[in-house]
């Protein structure tokens, strides 16, 4: 039983090289995020004025201690990138996790209450959330509250919860009419038990394919907000505020701005590749 599962997974990976490629990049990203504290070659916060704006390895005057060079006060770029990746991963994964939780709660309540007042209210709230230009909402909220890691997570989760809520709501609306739910009800199962045990089970196959893309979106938005200096604040390190620091020196030391962007691009690319394959796999139309 267990062996066939592993075999299936392996054959899936072999048949979908783009998925495998994405997965490997994401695993490396997660490794860096988890162990950033231990694998940074230098203290990412310690500056050394003598070595400021050191060039990266491809330059002839490079100092091989700092492979990607240093920033404007001589902090090691590799170390800062590792810490930035860590922030990106923490913020984006938790933001999408929060969005799924909010979406589940709203979708379940709404679907069970359909048709009814609670359903209407919840759906109008969803409409409002979707009608509000997200970037504007994010900026207003982040100037209203203190921009901490936690508030960034909450703000980013606002971008994707309505989609999850709608998916679960329509799932619940279909499933709750099924015979097996009526049977469970007749046997005296509580509403909550029915909701969690029976109605939520199809939810996963609906949300797994979209999650990688939502995480990718959260990573881009987090780096953007931090670049605009309304997201993650120093001394916390984000790929966005590394770019913001670098932009003042872009004419002479362009790599400080370019490399964090490339890092974001690689992670987002990996997530998009995984999401593409998952979407095809979970699309019932293509699975016939």
């Amino acid at each position, binding site marked *: 039983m267990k062996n066939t599962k592993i075999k299936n997974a392996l054959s899936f990976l072999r048949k979908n090289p783009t998925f495998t490629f994405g997965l490997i990049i994401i695993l490396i990203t997660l490794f860096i995020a988890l162990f950033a504290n231990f694998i940074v070659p230098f203290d990412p916060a310690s500056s050394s004025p003598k070595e400021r704006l050191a060039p990266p390895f491809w330059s002839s005057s490079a100092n091989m201690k700092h492979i990607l060079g240093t920033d404007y006060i001589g902090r090691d770029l590799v170390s800062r990138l590792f810490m930035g990746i860590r922030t990106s991963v923490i913020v984006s994964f938790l933001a999408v996790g929060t969005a799924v939780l909010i979406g589940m709660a709203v979708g379940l309540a709404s679907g069970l209450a359909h048709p009814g007042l609670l359903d209407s209210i919840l759906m109008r709230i969803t409409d409002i959330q979707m009608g509000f230009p997200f970037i*504007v909402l994010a900026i207003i*909220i982040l100037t*209203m509250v203190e921009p901490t890691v936690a508030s960034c997570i909450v703000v980013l989760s606002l971008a994707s919860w309505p989609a999850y809520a709608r998916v679960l709501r329509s799932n619940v609306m279909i499933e709750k009419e099924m015979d097996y739910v009526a049977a469970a009800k007749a046997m005296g199962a509580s509403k909550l038990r029915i909701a969690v045990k029976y109605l939520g089970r199809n939810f996963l196959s609906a949300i797994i394919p979209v999650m990688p893309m939502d995480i990718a979106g959260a990573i881009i938005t987090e780096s953007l907000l931090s670049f605009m200096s309304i997201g993650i604040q120093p001394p916390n390190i984000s790929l966005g505020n590394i770019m913001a620091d670098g932009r003042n020196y872009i004419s002479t030391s362009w790599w400080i701005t370019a490399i964090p962007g490339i890092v974001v691009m690689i992670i987002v690319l990996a997530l998009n590749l995984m999401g593409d394959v998952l979407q095809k796999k979970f699309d019932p139309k293509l699975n016939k």
Partner: protein
Amino acid sequence: MLATITKRLLQGLIVIIAITVITFVMLRLIPSDPSRTMAPNATEAQLLQLKEQMGIGDPIAVQFAKYVNNLFSGYLGYSYFQKADVVTVIGRALPVTGILLMFAIIISLVFGLILGIIAAIYSNTWIDRLISGFSVLFQSMPNYWVGIILIQIVSVNLKLLPSTGYKNIRYAILPSIVLSLPMTAVLIRNIRASMMDSINQSFVKAAKARGIPSWSLLVRYSFRNSLIPVLTIFGTQLGILLGNSVVVEYVFGYPGIGMQILNAILRRDYYLVQGLVALLSGVFILINMAIDISYIYLDPRIRKAQGGL
């Protein structure tokens, strides 16, 4: 059909009203005083007077009542930082953003269609792989970062195009290229996929069996049929484009709606923010509504489920 549209319009109106109320309250919860920003050295008494002039002296509920009252006579309020009516400021910024969006949409449509069709015709050759590869890559690049890099290369190093501000149409070229990239990528991928899809459908196969040449087969049969899904993708992308334009305008210092809205939020220019948010979300909601209605219109199954036309 008409009943559905009326119902959706009413729902949209309610959503815009709700968004306006939320924005109104949230702005006033930002812990900073715009009158202080206006006059950093004023005394308390002078500040009170200034607040009265700016229309932010009363309690929130009273301010809101006055605001709604003004709305009914078509007055959106006054931007005290720009010393002009909100309508005037919007009127100045709107055409600038309009040009940006128009350019970006044209670029996306032209390149999306051409490259998407080429990728489908030469599917699974190196041409297709090159086009598809680049479109995945462009889809994954952070838009604002592409902007920063292109400003450096094209404007600063090569001195080909101006980088910031807006004086004439040349100033819109670089930002609209940046803005169009993700949309172009999405269109290429979807046009390719939907062409490939329709190539395999029976009516196309039948046409092929009748001996219709493959080029005309692709354009007259596959392409026409693949436009429907692409149309809805285009609608969804328009909404995303609108959000991205705020970011691109920020990076390029491009004085359109997005730049105005950012400055207004940062300076607590309350009435300007409210007007701009209502405008943006109104356009947003109209686009979404148009997508939904086009679904109903184009797909007979949904039309039936909604109770006929």
